[in-house]
């Protein structure tokens, strides 16, 4: 069955890549960008760049207006109660590091931080290093064979010593949604702070942070069809009040003399230095574009393509899926074939897929795998992309076996 993407033409790079015989199936790493974003960046840079929150002049006022308008749009996208709860960072990793440093004062030696076995390094290492610095215990929630956090184990591990729970919404390796409502409930019952890494989850469907009830939600712009260099941190007001500034300088300062300084509250107090102005304005354009799409149609298209991907992989002998992916992507290995060999021959045939451990080395250690191939989808992919991928896979396996 042919599954065309009605939005493919909105992403000029897809045609350009096809012109270079490249089939882009690595959107979980980063996405291609809509024309609307490119136009907005061009407009900003050709009509007058300016710094934000500093200048009284017209270009400064326009840049600040567009910058702050994006804060509103991000707030609306996540259904945050107020735009002031949206902090811009350099990326999702940067947002998680801000939390791990800015919340340091909330922990005492012996306290526990709980993460899961499937975390991306970005939601593991900041907490691991915080635990090492302050003598905290990092507890790891195990996952089941499908690739979902084990709730029974979570109920045993999340306890009175738990001060913070940090988990992914959607796994970047396994393509599995995690049982956030139950997990967040367990953490809240212990009075622990909750952090959701939405880097993958935010790209698929709309998520309501109020409904989720997390204290913090993190995502990166570039995985959501926006510019790179921009991350978003949403926080509940009482949680943001517990966060200390991490980086200093620029307009985050309220008053300063040579012996001391006081700082602004969120969001500006956490946006030290000149922020990625063009990137933030570009993210606003991307959100406008995404808001203009029929969300149900996008969801259906992605679900059908994903089913097509899983069917094709399951039909092939010796192909072993990792976990039971339910959205956006699938990682797999092939019996008797090294993933690096397969990656080599897929690359030779112009397949832009990811190979390796996908920034989740501890997960791969647990799975007992040296690496895997990951195919990840976006709204601009169509069934022809998958057709070319399966042809390339068959040819590669024929050669290697």
């Amino acid at each position, binding site marked *: 069955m042919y599954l065309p993407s009605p939005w493919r033409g909105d992403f000029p790079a897809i045609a350009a890549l096809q012109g270079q015989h490249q089939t882009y199936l690595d959107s979980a790493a980063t996405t291609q960008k809509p024309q609307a974003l490119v136009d907005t960046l061009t407009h900003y840079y050709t009509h007058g760049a300016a710094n934000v929150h500093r200048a009284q002049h017209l270009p400064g006022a326009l840049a600040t207006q567009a910058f702050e308008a994006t804060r509103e749009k991000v707030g609306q996208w996540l259904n945050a109660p107020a735009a002031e709860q949206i902090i811009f960072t350099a990326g999702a990793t940067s947002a998680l590091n801000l939390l791990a440093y800015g919340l340091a004062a909330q922990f005492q030696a012996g306290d526990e931080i709980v993460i899961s076995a499937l975390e991306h390094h970005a939601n593991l290492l900041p907490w691991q290093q915080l635990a090492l610095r302050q003598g905290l215990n990092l507890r790891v929630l195990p996952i089941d064979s499908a690739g979902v956090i084990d709730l029974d184990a979570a109920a045993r591990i999340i306890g009175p010593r738990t001060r913070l729970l940090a988990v992914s919404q959607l796994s970047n390796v396994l393509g599995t949604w995690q049982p956030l409502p139950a997990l967040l409930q367990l953490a809240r019952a212990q009075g622990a702070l909750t952090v959701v890494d939405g880097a993958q989850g935010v790209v698929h469907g709309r998520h309501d942070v109020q409904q989720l009830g997390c204290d913090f939600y993190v995502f990166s712009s570039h995985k959501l069809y926006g510019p790179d260099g921009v991350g978003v941190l949403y926080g509940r007001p009482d949680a943001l009040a517990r966060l200390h500034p991490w980086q200093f300088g620029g307009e985050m300062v309220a008053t300063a003399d040579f012996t001391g300084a006081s700082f602004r509250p969120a969001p500006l107090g956490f946006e030290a230095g000149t922020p990625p102005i063009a990137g933030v304005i570009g993210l606003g354009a991307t959100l406008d574009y995404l808001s203009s799409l029929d969300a149900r149609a996008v969801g259906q298209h992605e679900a059908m393509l994903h089913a097509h991907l899983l069917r094709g992989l399951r039909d092939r002998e010796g192909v072993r899926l990792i976990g039971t992916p339910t959205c956006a992507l699938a990682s797999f290995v092939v019996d008797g074939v090294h993933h690096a060999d397969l990656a080599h*021959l897929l690359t030779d045939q112009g397949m832009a897929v990811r190979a390796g451990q996908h920034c989740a080395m501890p997960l791969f250690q647990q799975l007992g795998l040296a690496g895997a191939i990951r195919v990840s989808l976006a709204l601009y992919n169509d069934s022809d992309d998958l057709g070319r991928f399966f042809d390339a896979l068959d040819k590669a396996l024929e*050669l*290697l076996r």
Partner: protein
Amino acid sequence: MSLPDAAQAAVEQFHQAGGWEQRARLLMQWAERLPPMAQADKVEANRVAGCESTVWLMAQPVGERLHFTAASEARLIRGLLALLLIRIDGLSPGELDQLDLPAWFEQLGLGRQLSPSRSNGLNAVLKRMRQLAAP
């Protein structure tokens, strides 16, 4: 500098290869020709960091010269390693230092295997080789 005989033969083979499929077949043939490394030598100290698939590389002095052995879990990498070793076979450390190894892979039409975004680790292997050969 003239090429060793085996290297000259490899150049001719790869020049005749018409496309990616034939190059892949040749790499797999060369993989079979990589002399095996003793299991006891496949230890952390000989592991080349920065490779997607595990690669081991060791150098043993034979008189004035260094004799390299290499191994990998991945077949196509073994092929690349075999092609590397035939090019440097019998060189003195001074000659090895002078040798433009990326140019060698370019000559074979395999230059893309050395692009910085490649995670196959061939670049890391070349770097490690230079360290081992350094006086």
